[in-house]
């Protein structure tokens, strides 16, 4: 069996396992899994830029929030139905990532990190500034009655789970395709040696801009999905904390692997959930665990498995 076939098998197998998991897991865990799939979409979007292109952004919360508010404001203020509002979320993320990408790609390295952080902070303050519409830090709830598509109630546990699964699957397979396509190969080439890629004739800046846009739109899709399925939009999601989270999920799961972001998000969710149930000092437990993971699994969980055991892992 070729590596490509094995990769397809892994992705489809994961989707099948998740599809079946709803039937066997208790309600609490299936609800958690829906949430994890949504944030894993965010992590996968981040991974495209960080794991495959080598650009470490500290401002992805801006793209997540663009999708979140793109959908949320249209539903909250203009009474749009979910599908057009979801499209608005994607368009908002597209526009924001294109404009921000155009500006931030003039920097590299540490400057890139700082500039992305500053833009995200500017986005956060913009949300607060327009508090009349966004309700600032408080945010707003999307009413249950409005969160329906073609008669399906998105607040129903089953509908919500499979809606999250569909979007997760589309993102996973789509990004897996992109990574194997010439565009994805070029991203890896830029990550490994940007000067060589440029010398070979690639328009590195244009390709990186495309990567920022794809990454931003996927992150925005995650934000829009969160608002739609969980009924809330607020400025907290635009804070620096929510820019650090995807970095953490990707590092723990495995940067530059297709399923690493999902594994990282799942691991982090249950680490916090389990530890907080055992001790009030759970943040200490989480911190120590992350230090240990970093020390002993420097490539992340999936990345280390790939390095040591399964070289074919995508």
């Amino acid at each position, binding site marked *: 069996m070729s590596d490509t076939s094995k990769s397809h098998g892994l992705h489809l197998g994961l989707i099948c396992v998740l599809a079946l998991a709803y039937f066997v897991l208790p309600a609490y865990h299936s609800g958690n899994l829906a949430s994890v799939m949504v944030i894993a979409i965010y992590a996968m979007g981040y991974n495209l830029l960080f794991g495959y292109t080598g650009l470490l952004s500290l401002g992805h919360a801006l793209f997540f929030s663009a999708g979140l508010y793109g959908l949320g404001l249209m539903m909250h203020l203009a009474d749009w139905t979910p599908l057009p509002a979801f499209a608005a979320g994607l368009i908002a993320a597209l526009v924001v990532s294109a404009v921000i990408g155009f500006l931030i790609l003039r920097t590299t390295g540490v400057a890139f990190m700082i500039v992305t952080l500053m833009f995200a902070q500017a986005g956060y303050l913009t949300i607060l500034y327009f508090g009349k519409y966004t309700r600032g830090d408080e945010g707003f709830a999307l009413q249950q009655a409005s969160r329906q598509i073609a008669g399906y109630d998105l607040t129903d546990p089953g509908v919500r789970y499979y809606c999250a699964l569909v979007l997760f699957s589309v993102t996973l397979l789509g990004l897996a395709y992109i990574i194997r396509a010439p565009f994805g190969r070029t991203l890896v080439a830029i990550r490994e040696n940007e000067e060589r890629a440029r010398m070979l004739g690639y328009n590195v800046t244009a390709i990186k801009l495309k990567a920022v846009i794809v990454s931003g739109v996927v992150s925005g899709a995650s934000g829009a999905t969160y608002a739609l399925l*969980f009924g809330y939009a607020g400025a907290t999601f635009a804070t620096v904390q929510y820019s650090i989270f995807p970095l953490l999920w990707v590092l723990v799961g495995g940067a530059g692997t297709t399923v690493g972001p999902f594994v990282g998000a799942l691991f982090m969710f249950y680490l916090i959930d389990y530890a907080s149930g055992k001790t009030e000092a759970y943040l200490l437990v989480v911190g120590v665990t992350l230090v240990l993971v970093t020390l002993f699994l420097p490539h992340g969980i999936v990345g280390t498995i790939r390095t040591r055991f399964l070289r074919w892992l995508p």
Partner: protein
Amino acid sequence: MSKLIKPTPTLTRRTLLGTAAAAAATPLLGRYAQAQSSEPIRIGFQVHRTGIGASYGRWYDRTTTAAVKRINDMGGINGRPVEIVAEDDGTDPKRGAEVVEKFATQHNCDIGFGTLFSHVVYGSAPRAGELKLPYFVVSEGHHVASGALNRWTMQPAITDVKSQVQAMAPFVADNLGKKVTMIYPDFAFGHDHRDYFSEAIEKQGGEVVAKIAIPPSETSFTKYFPKIPRDTEVIYHVMIGPAVLTFVKEMGEFFGPSKPEIFGFLDSLEAVDINSPGLEFLEGTYFWEGHPRYAQADQSSHDKMYREAVGVDENGASVSDPKDVATYSHMFGCWETLNIVKRGMEAADYKSTADRSKLIEAIEEMSDMPLSDDHPQGAKRFNGKTHQTFGHQYISKVDSGKLVLAHTSSIEDTLYEDEVDYTTQSF
């Protein structure tokens, strides 16, 4: 999606056999039901143990523990003991929603309770509504009464910011001055103060002569003070977070001894000792208090009992550590909410989670709640339509390093027109 499929009842040989078997097992079922009825009432306590709300969370935790002990000492609720299932939400709206889900689907809690910060309430309430989990917040946000949430969410024991601010205007206009400059944080909480107070002071014949919004990331305030108009008679301030100490110190340096009247909300200084270095400038200024921090000369027996039960001394600090100042203006909400839940469950003859909607309806029926051991902060008037309570507000003056009660507003001062009728929403 097998969980969504509901079986269609048809009379077959198998169902008849099943019915017979069920009938034979009825005595067992009865015994189980009895066992179940002695199960504790499980109250999911959504607590801010970490994050920006941690100082509040610590005292909410202590108050809740004391309230539950008192309820259990009195025989529990409907003969069942009360058990608290506490989960930290990190003062984060996403984690808040997950905690609510955990209460409903993993811990099988009867209700969720205890949330303070408004953004966590907004993030969690939709899930509570979807899971049909009665969700009692202790937040003072206007979110419940505004109609933005759902029928499963209530705020029965603490007044909201709109009524608090509105009730301050008559005192400010009559005693301090009519030309007010407002200084507030540039986010939703500050905007609520700006909007509600501006409207209320105009009704009293006063006016807001300047509105100075401070960005949330600000650490120095010197540049804002020159914006205060010279004809200002009263400065109305509400600052949140650690920067409040710098704010007060710099305001003192700016005005010196010739300061205008100053009125603030104690939210700024919850869990902060009023005698902290740098706060000397507050001497002679006025504060809103939800519940007087210092035991007053005419302290009620109810406040005395409540203070002792929670472990708060006469200066509003922990009896075991005088430096550990309580969030006294807010935490009574936990005590009173649990007593309201107790009364609601007793009125609804609450037996299991199947009776959750009966509990909501029973509380919606409530109205006046007199000053008592159940309500040590003061009398309340609950509005079942808006799911929001109304009650007395307190204004204290800083006198010799203590907050001395100067005025108590009437409940009528806090009332405003209904903005929603949750009772028209179906469960």
